[in-house]
């Protein structure tokens, strides 16, 4: 049996909600193909329809604008490639060529890598700078927006620092120029209340597993009449916008969690208290530690630290061996010797990124967890710093 660690890596994924787990035996009965006509399809069809309806109500959009897929990476790919293929030069169905993208410099790889791929296809990508304080450069957006801009894509909240970006302001700038806007809402969904009507974006992407539901299920919102070209062609699923038999179990698990969205606001307040307590204590107990984007508007659960002189990878391994699961922006076992592109884009030095630690709290985090973690972190940091000092003094 695996030891259950104290889990403080909710921005990576969340443990399954007890509600999801207890509903599983019943949901597993829904093995039918929702596209069938016979009896076995009824349950799955109902789950699909009801989940979509509940989610659409919460997000204040139409059910018709919701597409279930495999996750936010698929959603992000679909949005960028849809828009590119709609407006790309040489598309004879379209008379107005738009080949420029405005994308924040701190997006998830499923955005940045897709955009880089589109660059090889001829797209021009303007990377919107974000300052060390977490401020996105609205003037840059204003200056770069023009009649050839196809899409602006800025995440709702950053996965590493938790910084929340002013999507409504960005939408206002873009709409003034009649430009489409996408927001990757993966980190925000279930952590803070929002709706897409209010946000005003044309596209949004969400992932179920970050919100205590199963992996392999995502949600793509595409506003009615917004350009859309399938990424996956196939059967008539999702009104022919996403081929492939639906992941009913994943969708159903998300449906269970949509019922829990009423708790978001309350939990957010509780988590913010814990996070702020954690940061206050850490700054008091560990010398030379800073919180990245501390002064920005942040998600309540995220704390991105730079602990001078402590290698993030070693810190992570040490903490794991002691039963704490956290994350780092340091170059890790990824086969890529570069540290986090997000932290570097913010203007942190490579060394600072190498010394970074991300702590992200969730609905199951308790004050006891935080106290145990603070205690352990203080000890480990002292130990690692002592070894470094001994080595440099040799």
């Amino acid at each position, binding site marked *: 049996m695996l030891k259950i660690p104290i889990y403080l890596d909710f921005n990576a994924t969340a443990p399954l909600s007890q509600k999801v787990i207890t509903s599983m035996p019943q949901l597993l009965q829904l093995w039918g193909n929702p596209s069938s006509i016979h009896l076995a399809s009824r349950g799955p069809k109902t789950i699909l329809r009801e989940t979509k309806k509940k989610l659409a109500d919460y997000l204040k959009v139409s059910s018709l604008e919701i597409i279930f897929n495999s996750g936010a990476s698929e959603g992000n790919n679909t949005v960028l490639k849809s828009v590119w293929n709609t407006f790309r030069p040489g598309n004879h169905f379209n008379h107005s060529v738009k080949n420029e993208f405005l994308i924040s410099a701190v997006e998830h790889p499923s955005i940045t890598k897709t955009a880089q791929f589109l660059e090889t296809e001829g797209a021009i990508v303007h990377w919107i700078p974000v300052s060390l304080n977490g401020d996105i450069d609205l003037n840059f957006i204003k200056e770069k927006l023009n009649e050839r801009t196809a899409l602006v894509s800025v995440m709702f909240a950053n996965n590493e620092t938790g910084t929340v970006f002013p999507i409504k302001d960005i939408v206002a700038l873009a709409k003034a120029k009649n430009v489409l806007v996408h927001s990757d809402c993966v980190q925000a969904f279930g952590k803070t209340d929002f709706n897409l009507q209010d946000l005003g974006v044309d596209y949004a992407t969400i992932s179920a597993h970050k919100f205590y539901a199963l992996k392999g299920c995502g949600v793509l919102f595409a506003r009615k009449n917004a350009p859309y070209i399938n990424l996956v062609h196939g059967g008539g699923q999702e009104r022919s916008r996403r081929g492939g038999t639906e992941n009913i179990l994943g969708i159903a698990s998300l449906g269970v969690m949509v019922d829990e969205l009423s708790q978001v606001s309350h939990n957010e307040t509780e988590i913010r208290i814990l996070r702020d307590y954690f940061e206050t204590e850490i700054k008091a107990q560990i010398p030379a530690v800073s919180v990245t984007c501390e002064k920005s508007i942040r998600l309540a659960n995220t704390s991105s630290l730079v602990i001078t002189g402590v290698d993030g990878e*070693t810190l992570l391994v040490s903490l794991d*061996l002691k039963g704490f699961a956290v994350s780092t922006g340091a*170059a890790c*076992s990824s*086969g890529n010797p570069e540290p986090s592109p997000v932290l570097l884009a913010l203007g942190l030095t490579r060394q600072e990124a190498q010394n970074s630690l991300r702590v992200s709290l969730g609905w199951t985090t308790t004050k006891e967890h935080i106290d145990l973690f603070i205690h352990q972190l203080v000890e480990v940091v002292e*130990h690692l710093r002592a*070894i470094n000092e001994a080595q440099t003094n040799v």
Partner: protein
Amino acid sequence: MSDTVNVPVKKKKVLVAMSGGVDSSVAAALLKEQGYDVVGATMQVWDYTNCDITEGNGTCCSSLDVDDARSVADKLDIPFYVLNCEAKFKASVIDPFINAYLQGQTPLPCVNCNTYLKFDHLVKKMKELECDYLATGHYAQIIQSASGEYQIKTSEDDWKDQTYFLFTIDPAIVPKLLFPIGHLKKPEVRKLAESQGLVVAKKKDSQGICFVGNMGYDNFIKGQVSEIILKSKRGVLKRYPTNEVMAQHDGIHHYTIGQSKGLGMTYHEKLFVIKIDATDNTVWVGEEKYLFHDEVDVIEPHIISQFTDGEELSVKIRYQHKGSIAKVVKSETGFKLKFKEPQRAITPGQAAVFYSQEKVLLGGGWIKL
């Protein structure tokens, strides 16, 4: 071992370097069996995605060896981590490897990997992760002398013995090292792997240099060094000792002392590379008899166990060398070795490693021209 009751004995904790091969896998298994608290680690040293070996689906981190190491760790139910050492590996292993070839030498990258990665970086990790020992799957043994000194001795498996690559180890860390398979022979190691059900039991032994793979060091260097630099290494093949120019060559990095095949010219008698002069890129070729020398200078000396100046020791001048008796005399830059019998193809860039009669690894140094 104390047998006091009611006092929980804290298990000794070991960091074991796991390459994904059968030797280090069995090392980890044995440690676990012996009751240690075992933590496994693989050093991610090189981006193998451009290598023609052991690559899976081409994404980062998908090296099959790492997967194998992880699967062994899972089977043994021990924590396992991949540590990113790419920058350090490039600076202390790859770059010197390439430079040595460009200087007309034949490098020994495994020693640098041991010096700067396994027995430096991982020693630091051992301390950081609060481990008591560092273990590897080397064919070597740790023994304690009558006076209590911890020493490195050759493996029971003469053929696989890897102490040649360990001569730069800091003696201070020897008491912290464990070589769990050093008392075994390779077939026994494989048998153990099989009986433990480890996926690597039938895996082929790694051959040659890990980051070069099947492409050959020639092609590896070609991929890493600019064409301009490679062109600047061109020169002539000269007959030794007559000085006669015999042919043009494509770069001194294609040659190693003692080589007779692939010289890039045909001649009616068998000729060997006798000497490589990096200052003017001359590669000297001649009859085999000129390959034999009975004296050699060794620089950058390392001593693990003390010996007397001028003592006659068994010296290995390359990995597969059986060892020959030489008088080892201190010199200004290291040691001067005087062999009882002339040695064939003493090659700069390789190491000369000293052993006592009892097969204890005493130290060594780098062969200088």
